[in-house]
């Protein structure tokens, strides 16, 4: 079973992680019930 998604809340931190890990950032604007 796929792991749950570990959503971050800070874009700058995510960009740093993306640079470190060779990934892209997925920026999700949502109004879905939390």
């Amino acid at each position: 079973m796929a792991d749950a998604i570990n959503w971050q809340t800070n874009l700058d931190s995510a960009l740093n992680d993306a640079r470190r890990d060779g990934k892209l950032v997925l920026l999700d604007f949502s109004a879905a019930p939390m």
Partner: protein
Amino acid sequence: MYPSPTVSALVNEFFVPVRVHVKQKDDFARLSARFNAQWTPTTLIVDASGVERHRIEGFLPRDDFAAQLLLGRAHAARAGGTFDEAERRYQLVIEQYPLAEGAAEAQYWEGVSRYKRTNDAHALIETSQAFERRYQDSTWAKKASVWRQKEAS
């Protein structure tokens, strides 16, 4: 929410996911203004330097959304000038999600990436021929039609 295991696996493998919820008023206002996100859900694929490389506005079913994630990865490679990697990523969209919304677009940009890599215009002609076999009714087929080799008169 991405309840699909398929989508979750893609997100975890290729992306650092950031959620900005409308209830996070300050962050939502700032980031939606910065990226011109005017609707929810809007999902942006942003490269590590903070530049948007692909945008998904509104809901999509699982396979179409997964195809868009892979398409966004391919766009990022093309924008970065790694055309061989872009080709591979566009091919992956077509192979894994041939019926999805982004597949025709992937076929178009795969051809462009091959042309940019080889500087050989035959890549564009072959792409227009590929559209005669598949995705004939798509907007991307219309775009590729300009590359169709003119028949000798």
